[in-house]
């Protein structure tokens, strides 16, 4: 389960633990470190903030640059090599395709066939595909695929709990950390509950397949019970949390942390500078001609 060996824990990078009177035995320190999610490659081991910064800058830059060359450069120079280093190139490709396919249909409809343009390429019934439309659609698709891949790279290499823990180490209030982390658990639980309730309703003869009307009839009586049963738990859950000292203001000493390094800090600042430069170039119109 744990990828880290005791000799890999670098005391220079792990934040010092406030130990008060007692101090942490090496065995305990190893155990706590093993609680952190496993990370098979170097890219995985990067601090969540670094990976998030990379994803955010890539996404924003793709939007700001527009066109083809900008986003594609980001893809080829940034996202793909990182994905290769993380060993998830194929997985990422599949993920991005899955996300982009439904959107691609819409893009085709909105941007190719119905958009006003001059140079008509071909006509299907009342719809004409124009060169301008295809160009616009192309730019949108490139942008969306780059965004999907950049965020997918982040998502596939970062454990959500690790992200929340790291943010709390950096000052996020514990209550916000709770809300973010709890959402992870709540969604699958709610879907399980919905499936159970739907099965029970179907057993009572409710027809949920087929026509729009049937589908609608299948969903509406589901919304009420699923939501209500989730909400009635709020009271007990909040009392249980309160007796575990949940509402206490102030910082907490968390059990484990994600390593960071000065090199990564430098890279994050660099990414920020690049983003600002891109924004400035776009705003002042001094973008190089090829972008």
């Amino acid at each position, binding site marked *: 389960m744990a990828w880290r060996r005791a000799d890999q824990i670098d005391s220079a990078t792990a934040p010092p633990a406030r130990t008060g*009177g007692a101090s*942490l035995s090496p065995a305990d320190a190893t155990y706590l470190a093993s609680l952190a999610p496993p990370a098979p490659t170097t890219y995985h081991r990067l601090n969540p903030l670094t990976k998030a910064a990379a994803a955010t800058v890539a996404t924003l830059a793709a939007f700001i640059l527009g066109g083809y060359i900008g986003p594609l450069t980001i893809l080829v120079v940034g996202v793909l090599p990182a994905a290769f280093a993380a060993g998830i190139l194929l997985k990422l490709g599949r993920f991005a395709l899955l996300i982009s396919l439904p959107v691609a249909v819409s893009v085709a409809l909105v941007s190719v066939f119905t958009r006003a343009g001059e140079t008509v390429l071909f006509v299907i019934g009342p719809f004409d595909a124009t060169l301008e439309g295809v160009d616009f659609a192309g730019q949108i698709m490139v942008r969306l695929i780059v965004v999907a891949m950049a965020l997918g790279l982040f998502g596939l290499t970062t454990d959500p709990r690790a992200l929340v823990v790291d943010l709390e180490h950096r000052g996020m209030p514990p209550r916000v950390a709770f809300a973010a982390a709890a959402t992870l658990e709540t969604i699958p639980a709610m879907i399980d509950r919905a499936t159970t309730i739907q099965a029970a309703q179907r057993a009572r003869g409710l027809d949920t397949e087929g026509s729009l009307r049937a589908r609608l009839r299948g969903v509406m009586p589901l919304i009420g019970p699923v939501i209500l049963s989730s909400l009635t738990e709020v009271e007990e859950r909040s009392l249980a949390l*309160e007796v*575990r*000292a*949940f509402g206490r203001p102030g910082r907490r*000493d968390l*059990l484990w942390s994600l390593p960071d390094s000065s090199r990564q800090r430098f890279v994050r600042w660099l990414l920020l500078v690049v983003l600002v430069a891109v924004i400035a170039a776009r705003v002042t119109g001094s973008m190089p001609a090829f972008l």
Partner: protein
Amino acid sequence: MLELRGVAYRYPGYARSVLQDLDIAIDRHEIVGLVGPNEAGKSTLCLVAAGLAPASIGGTLTGSVLMDGKPIAGLPVHELAAWVGLVFQDPNTQRSGVTGTVFEEVALGSVNLGRPVAETVARTRSSLATLRIEHLADRDPMRLSGGQAQLVAIASILAMEPRLFILDEPTAQLDPEGTRLVGQALRRLAATGTALLIAEHKTDLLDGLCTRIIALDGGRVVLDGPADTALESDGLTGIGIQPPARVRLARAIKASGLRVPDELEQVAAGDRSA
């Protein structure tokens, strides 16, 4: 250590007081069983003793609740959490949902209290050891049986090392195996010397464990005495509480007029060495 003086409590929006003029004192190392029919006010008493009523759920409290002589009124619940622990019936809603391992779940209370990591780890380990659930430490808290989850809930409160440990019908939603596990856990808890207040319907769990029994009916104390006599008293049956099996056995023996071997009589008398 914990004192309720003339305590009456009314839930918000209700006219009737659920608790009426209670005078109860619990000392350190006492193990108190709380029995009573449904709607007698057992759960309400647990909430009041833990300080959640009225601080967290509103309502009106008259009288005073004192911890080591100091009134707890007005104290924020997270401060009280270090002194009084409370375990509820439903193992599902006590799971925080934010931890990946049982170890972190048990450590949660201590971490929330802002304790240093080393102290948290020590307390967590000791709590897991006391309840003999170290083997669950690496498990996913969402994938435990009801009984195991309830043990984790108990451990997570124990790791905060409260002076008074309250349990509100901890076995109500468990199957017989889970009930057995919790029963064992209660004995181990008792052995630590923490004061316990256990609200339960299953008097068999309280038999041999508690030093004292308080019976509640209609929000008032109708019985308060040493456990062995209290559990055998007719007052208990009078308010609808089923006494422990051995008591029922003893009464059945007496009623039948049969002569039974001495060992059986000893068992019925509560002698566990027979």
